[in-house]
């Protein structure tokens, strides 16, 4: 009887562990959640670095996710998610250091601001480089006219 109880307890704990593993965090600065599994699919909303989501299912390199705050359901490239808990700017560390050893408040904008004072670094040129965002329509046209892949 006691043994059966132990087995039930073990199974319950394993089940909880499995369910907990489905919680993930956004690992990119700004993630556009898509309505289907295509880079060019309609946007269902955007999430930010560190936002907590639940993975509902996966298909190829894509994960179907839901987020409660903000309330969004849709698809995201699986590599834009991490199981690592991410601590974002302004949040306080309340858990112990081990539990947060992979959290994400590292070489941030604040460190960059300090570093900028000391080094010969052309951040203006880097900022200009990062302005080269390509509109999805432009990229889709480039792919189609060049008979390349990924526009479907």
């Amino acid at each position, binding site marked *: 009887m006691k043994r059966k109880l132990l087995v039930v307890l073990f199974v319950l704990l394993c089940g909880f562990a499995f369910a907990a*593993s489905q919680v993930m965090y956004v690992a990119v*600065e700004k993630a556009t959640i898509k309505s289907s599994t295509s880079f060019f699919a309609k946007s269902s909303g955007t999430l930010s670095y560190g936002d907590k989501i639940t993975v509902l299912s996966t298909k190829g390199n894509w994960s179907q996710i839901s987020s409660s705050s903000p309330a969004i359901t849709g698809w995201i490239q699986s590599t834009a998610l991490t199981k*690592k808990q991410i601590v974002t700017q302004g949040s306080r560390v309340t858990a112990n250091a081990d539990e947060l050893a992979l959290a994400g408040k590292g*070489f*941030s904008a*604040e460190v960059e601001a300090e570093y900028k004072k000391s080094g010969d670094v052309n951040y203006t040129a880097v900022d200009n480089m990062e302005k080269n965002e390509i509109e999805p329509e432009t990229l889709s046209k480039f792919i189609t006219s060049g008979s390349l892949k990924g526009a479907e």
Partner: protein
Amino acid sequence: MKKSKFFNLGLAAASIMLLASCSSVMNIASAAATVAGEQGLIDADIASSISSTASAISKAAEVITPEQEYYIGRAVAGTILENYKVYDSPNAQLYLNEICNTIAINSDMPVLYKGYYVAILDTDEVNAFATSGGHIMVSRGLISCATSEDSLAAVIAHEISHIQLQHSIKAIKSSRATDAILKTAGTALTLSDNAQAKEIVSGFGDTVNDIVSTMVESGYSQRQEFDADANALKLLAQAGYDPNAMDSMLQLLKSKEQGQTSGFAKTHPTPDARISNLKDSYKQYSGYTDKALRQARFEEVLRYL
């Protein structure tokens, strides 16, 4: 008595699974040691020692966060761009960014913390750099070797491979840099004028120096360059480009690099070594015949360079 031991072991095993999944940080060895210590299965001191040793084994490349990779990449790009002027041609820049994004979205790592960006360096030197933040810088000298969009794509795919294989992060050697990454990966840092903040900024500087000196002076290892070449063939094929364009590009580089001592000639294996390393890899890719479709737009962009 036997049952009680069984209970303890069962509970310990279940707890390990919980710990391993709830906190993605502690590796299994560390978690196991902690739980075993708590359960009295091993001495608490020994448990603590096993736990910290297991944690210490983690390398910077394994614990680094996407945000850290991005900010390190920005500083590396900023250092390179302090030494090279950007060639200002919006048309050529857009074209290279389109090639880059086409390769990226078809790859296994379509998104980075921010994105993939390409800039052209205004120099005749044959050179290219890629940072962990997704910044790819290709020289006019290297672009001028290309004879087709696909050969240009081969250059960019090689650089994207360095990013996706985390080669720049693996170039971090100094302990102050590694310490700073490990420390800042784990805590919400409040930068005030104190010793810790200064240490972190110094560690950040060491990180950037380690990476830039590898990229500019010593180069990545031959193994890493070969891995980037092999991965580039896969990326080209996934995007619909002809992987054989890599061979054409390396043949062109061979003639261009003759007599050169800077740039690729200094930091990369010889084109001959790279050609020979890839020679058996092309046969797994076939049926890429649409190159002609892309030739007109390639020639059009060449006019801007």
